[in-house]
């Protein structure tokens, strides 16, 4: 599904290398987690994959189902099936949540040469998906993320993911700012979307989220590289001992 090879990235504004040769391969239907200390480059990886400005790829590649992602505009990557759940979902005053969702769904369909969703079908689907995530009608009517609590914003991200039905979902610290109940709700939303044709990359600081969203593979990232890869037990090890042991072991 997603294949990242020797990815080197630096900031455009300053001569600072953030990613120093990331290799990662995620098969269809797999759930991978990336953990790592602050400043290791986890969020940068998610931004570079989704096409945010300000980063320069100096070496390496990233492909989604063998299609080069790095040459595409953000909207093209989305239409190709990539989805980034933001760590800090953006508030957009003046744009209704429903309008936003419908515009996004239809823009992706249009770019794939598919027919747009009718207003009726869209409404039916969005209501069903919103209900699962305990998102009420009022949240759908309000401007995108404006006045939403931290938990509401994250649920809104998962709602977008459900409506857009991407192939590759990148979740950037989706657990940050969530209480226990909200984390459970969000995780259930993610788990409901797990399928053979859909892969996940879950970026997190904490093992807790991985109790709910059970990964197949866990990677540890430090200083711009993936330094260790293992099964779910690796996350437990981090939880118990911190990163110090692993960092020492690798160096």
């Amino acid at each position, binding site marked *: 599904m997603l294949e990242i090879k020797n990815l080197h990235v630096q900031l455009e504004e300053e001569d600072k290398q953030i990613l120093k040769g990331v290799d990662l391969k995620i098969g269809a239907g797999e759930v991978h987690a990336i953990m790592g200390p602050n400043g290791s480059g986890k969020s940068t990886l998610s931004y570079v994959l*989704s096409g945010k400005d300000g980063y320069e790829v100096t070496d390496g590649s990233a492909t989604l189902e063998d299609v080069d992602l790095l040459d595409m505009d953000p*909207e093209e990557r989305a239409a190709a099936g990539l989805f980034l759940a933001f760590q800090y979902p*953006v508030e957009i005053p*003046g744009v209704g949540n429903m309008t*936003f969702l419908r*515009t996004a769904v239809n*823009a992706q369909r249009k770019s794939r040469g598919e027919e747009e969703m009718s207003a009726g079908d869209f409404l039916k689907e969005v209501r069903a998906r919103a209900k699962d995530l305990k998102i009420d009608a009022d949240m759908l009517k309000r*401007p995108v993320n404006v006045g939403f609590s931290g938990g509401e914003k994250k649920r809104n991200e998962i709602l977008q993911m459900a409506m*857009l039905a991407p192939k590759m979902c990148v979740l950037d610290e989706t657990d940050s700012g969530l209480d226990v109940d909200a984390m459970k709700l969000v995780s259930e939303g993610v788990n409901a979307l797990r399928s053979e044709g859909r892969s996940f990359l879950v970026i997190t600081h904490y093992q807790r989220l991985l109790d709910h969203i059970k990964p197949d593979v866990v990677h540890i990232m430090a200083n711009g590289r993936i330094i260790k890869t293992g099964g779910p037990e690796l996350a437990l090890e981090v939880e118990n001992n911190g990163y110090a042991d692993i960092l020492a072991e690798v160096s």
Partner: protein
Amino acid sequence: MALPQIKADATKDRLIGMAMPACGAWATTARQDALNRLIAMGLPHKRDEYWRYTDPALLVGAEVSPSEALRTDTPIFMDKDKVRLIFVDGVFDADASDDPTLEGVEITRLVDAQAADVHWAQGLYGQLETAGQNPVDRPLAIMNTAFATDGVCLHVTGKPSKPLHISYRQSSDASDVVLHHVVKLDAGTELTLLETGTPGARSNVVLEVDVADNATLHHVRPQGRAHNRAVATHLFARVGTEATLKSFTLAMNGKMTRNEFVADIIGDDAVVHVGGVCVGDGKDFHHDDTVFITHDALNGESRQVFKKVLRNAATGVFQGKILVKAGAQKTDGYQISQSLLLDEDAQFLAKPELEIYADDVACSHGSTTGAIDETALFYLRSRGVPEQQATTLLTLAFLAEALDEIADEALAEELRDRLEGWLARHG
């Protein structure tokens, strides 16, 4: 103070060839008075403080700068049942217009009202305009009072079932149009007045509005889209007790626009809302909103909400003032003027002013200039919305607060659609 020679000469040049229409006694007196005032004041000059950000040359020059008439302007508000009064190059076209009868309004052509020896318009024509000359000179409006060739007088005596629509059409590329309308709303009445289109290559339009106690006027004005047109408008209003005046203007295209809105709140508990949206592309686009609202009564509410979207060296100007006179306690005045600059060449000049002589009032004003929010733009694009569509969505979101000022949602929706179309064409 004697008029500077340069102004006296320019005014003389402009008046050559302008003829005062033949009228009855009262109108001739009003027009002659205006001419005397104009000669004493002189036409505006770019060195005048009130014209600091807008060079009036195109509006006052002896020659009209030609502007190609739009041959294919899509009619607006077609779904709305209304009575249309059509002016072509500034002349009322009875054949093209609807039958000018509407229950609750007496409709009289200005020339007919002014031919009469006695007419209700006598108490208003040039009167509100004269009152609006203090404390700031508005000579283009004086010139209009002296030389207006046509217009309509509306006496609202009830609550008409549908809007009245003044529809302008331009047919000559060099038409120089001076129109003057007078609207008198009796106590407790209500009217929606639509004003649309390009009156002429150059136009000077004055609207004098008297809103009596408990009366309501909704005024919605999408201005003409001819690319090189120049227009100066003045709306002078007097607003009585518990009366409401809401005026909204949309401007797309045009070379020069100066819209002045002057309202005096003279009755307690009155409401005045004035709003506007303009979108401009190119160095030849210059749009100026100049507003002066005077609170001279208790518990008045006024709102000024203006939004501008500018690109490719287009210029937007906002001069807005709230004057709260001594004794106008509990005044609630709000003023916001914002511009969204879609590139670095566009410019927005704002002069917000508050002048308050009462001690128990709430007045606020704000003015901002900004670009598209890059974070929001990336968020939308990351969901698959193409860059241009995302920019349009964010631009319409920026304009939403101003469009919300229009009470009639169907009208607001149609203006929003027009803006969306414009933004898509100018992406």
